[in-house]
C-alpha cells in the first residue's frame, strides 16, 4: 500500500469517526453561525458611530475565520490524540506502516475539508448578515490550509502533553482565546498596548494575510511565508510528539 493509500485509509476512518459524532458535527458548523450572529449582527459594526467594532465588516474576516481555523483543529486533533492514547491506538499504529506524520497529515486533511466548509459558511453568513464587502480570492485557500496545518500540529502537541481529554479542551481554550484577541483579528493593533508583541503570534500572520486578500490590499507574500514556516514547524513538532505508548 502506498503512502497515498495509507493516507486515504486513515482519512476515511477519521472522517467517518467525526461525521458519526453528531454533536461535534453540529457545533462545528453552528459555532461560526453564532459567532457571526453575536459579533456581526447583535454587536454590529458601525463605522459612523455606535457598535463595538470600528472598522468595516470585511476587516473582521480574519477574526471570524480564525475562530474556526484556530479552535476546531486545536480541540479536534487534541481530543483525537487523547482518545487514541486512551484506547492504545497509537501502540497498535506503531506496528503498522503508518507513520506519525502520515497520521497527523490525514487528520489535517480531514480538518481542512471540515474547516473549509465551515469557513465558506461563515463567509456566506458575513455577506448575508453584515453586508461585508469581501474579495473571494483563491489566495484565501493557502492561508486556511496553512493555518489548519499549524493548529493541527499544536493540537497534536496539546493532546500528547495533556494527561486527559478534559485537559486537552482546557489547554486548547487557554491558548486559543488569548491568541484570538491578541493577533490583529478582532482588535486592531492600535488599540492594543504598544509593548504587546503581537508579531510573536503565528495567528497574526494569518490575520494580516487573510485581511490583505479579502480586502484586496496589503502585503500577502510575507505573511504567507511566515505562516508557512510556522505551519511546517508546528506540524513537525506535533507529529514528533505523538505518543507510541507510554
Amino acid at each position, binding site marked *: 500500500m502506498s503512502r497515498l*493509500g495509507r493516507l486515504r485509509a486513515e482519512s*476515511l476512518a477519521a472522517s467517518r469517526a467525526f461525521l458519526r459524532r453528531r454533536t461535534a458535527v453540529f457545533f462545528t458548523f453552528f459555532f461560526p453561525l453564532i459567532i457571526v450572529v453575536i459579533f456581526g449582527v447583535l454587536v454590529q459594526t458601525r463605522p459612523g458611530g455606535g457598535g463595538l467594532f470600528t472598522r468595516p465588516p470585511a476587516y473582521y474576516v480574519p477574526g471570524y475565520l480564525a475562530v474556526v481555523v484556530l479552535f476546531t483543529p486545536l480541540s479536534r486533533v487534541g481530543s483525537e490524540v487523547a482518545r487514541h492514547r486512551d484506547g492504545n491506538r497509537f*501502540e*497498535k499504529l506503531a506496528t503498522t506502516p503508518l507513520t506519525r506524520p502520515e497520521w497527523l497529515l490525514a487528520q489535517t486533511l480531514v480538518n481542512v475539508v471540515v474547516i473549509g466548509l465551515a469557513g465558506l459558511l461563515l463567509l456566506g453568513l458575513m455577506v448575508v448578515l453584515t453586508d461585508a464587502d469581501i474579495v473571494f480570492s483563491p489566495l484565501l485557500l493557502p492561508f486556511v490550509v496553512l493555518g489548519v496545518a499549524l493548529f493541527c500540529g499544536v493540537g497534536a502537541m496539546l493532546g500528547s502533553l495533556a494527561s486527559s481529554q478534559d485537559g486537552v479542551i482546557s489547554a486548547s481554550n487557554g491558548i486559543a482565546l488569548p491568541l484570538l484577541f491578541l493577533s490583529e483579528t478582532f482588535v486592531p493593533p492600535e488599540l492594543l498596548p504598544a509593548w504587546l508583541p503581537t508579531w510573536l503570534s503565528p495567528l497574526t500572520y494569518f490575520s494580516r494575510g487573510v485581511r490583505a486578500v479579502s480586502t484586496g490590499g496589503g502585503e500577502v507574500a510575507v505573511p504567507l511565508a511566515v505562516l508557512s514556516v510556522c505551519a511546517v514547524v508546528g506540524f513537525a513538532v506535533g507529529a514528533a510528539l505523538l505518543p507510541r505508548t507510554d
Partner: protein
Amino acid sequence: MTEVLVAEDVRRSYGDTVALDGVSLSASAGEVLALVGPNGAGKTTLVRALTGTTDAEGRVELFGEAPTTVDRDRIGLLPQSFTPHERLTARELVAYYAGLYDETRDVEAVLADVGLAEAADTHYENLSGGQQRRTCVATALINDPDLLVLDEPTTGIDPAGRQALWELLEGLADRGVTILVTTHYMEEAQRLADRVGLLADGRLVALDAPEALVADHAGDSQLIVDGAFDEAAVAAIDYPTETTLQDGRLVVTGVRPESIGGVVDALDAAGVGYDSLTWTQPDLEAVYLELTGTGVGRSGEPREGARAATGGSR
C-alpha cells in the same frame, strides 16, 4: 530452527519501579509462546519492548532486526485494552487497518474467521464485549502476519468464542505463524502454548513446555477427603503415600486415579467415615500459584484442581 523473536537481558524501569528485570527469551517460527503472571508482573511492558513501542535496555530482535526497523507487514499486534474507533463498524475497522498495509487478507474472510460475519455492519460501540474483542483480534490478523502478538486476546470473550479463537490460533501456528500471547487463563496457556513463560516482579521465573513446568513445579496429584478428622484418624489410616491433615480434611498425596480404590479401602479398614472425595491433578495453575508465591487460596485452604475424578460419602 529460525529464531523469529529474540530478547536478551531486557530491562525497563518507570522511575523507581522496575517493570522488567533482565528478561531473556526467544521464539522460533510456528511456536506459540505464552506469557503468564500476576497483574503488574511486566507482561505488557515486555510485549511493548518486543514490539518496539517502548524503549528498553537489552537486545530485542524480530526476524533479525530491531523492532522499530523490521518490516511492519510481518507483525500483527493486539495491544492490551485496545479500543478502536467506536463509531466504525466491525467491517470498516478491519478494512481501515487493511488499508495501512501493502498486502492483506480478504476483509470478509478475516471477519468470518473470528466469527463476526453476521455482526460486521454493527458499530463497534454496539457490539458485545466478546464481539468487540474479536474485532480487535481481526485487526491483528488482517495483514497475515508472520509474528502475531496478542496481549490478553480472550479477555471478555465467552467460552464458545474463546474455543473458536483458540482453534483459529492453532491453525495459524500450524501454518508457521509465531504467536506470542499473554493471558490470565492458565487453561489457555496450557492448551495453546508450546512453551510458557512465567513472569513475576519483572523477572522471568520459569520458561518451558507446559508439561515440563507442571512436572517440575506443580507437585503430585492429591486426593482430598472431606469429613471431620483429627490426628488419630490420620494415624489410623494405613496407606503407603503421605497423608496429612489440613483444616480438618485429609489430603493424600501422590494418588493415581487407579489407586483411589486403595485409599477408600484404607479408610474403611481404619473405620474412618467421610463425606466426599476429590481428586486433583497438578496443572499449570498450580505452577503459577507455586512460583508466584500465591499457592494458598484466600480462605487459607489448599487449592483444588479442576479434575474431580470421583466422590461419595460414607
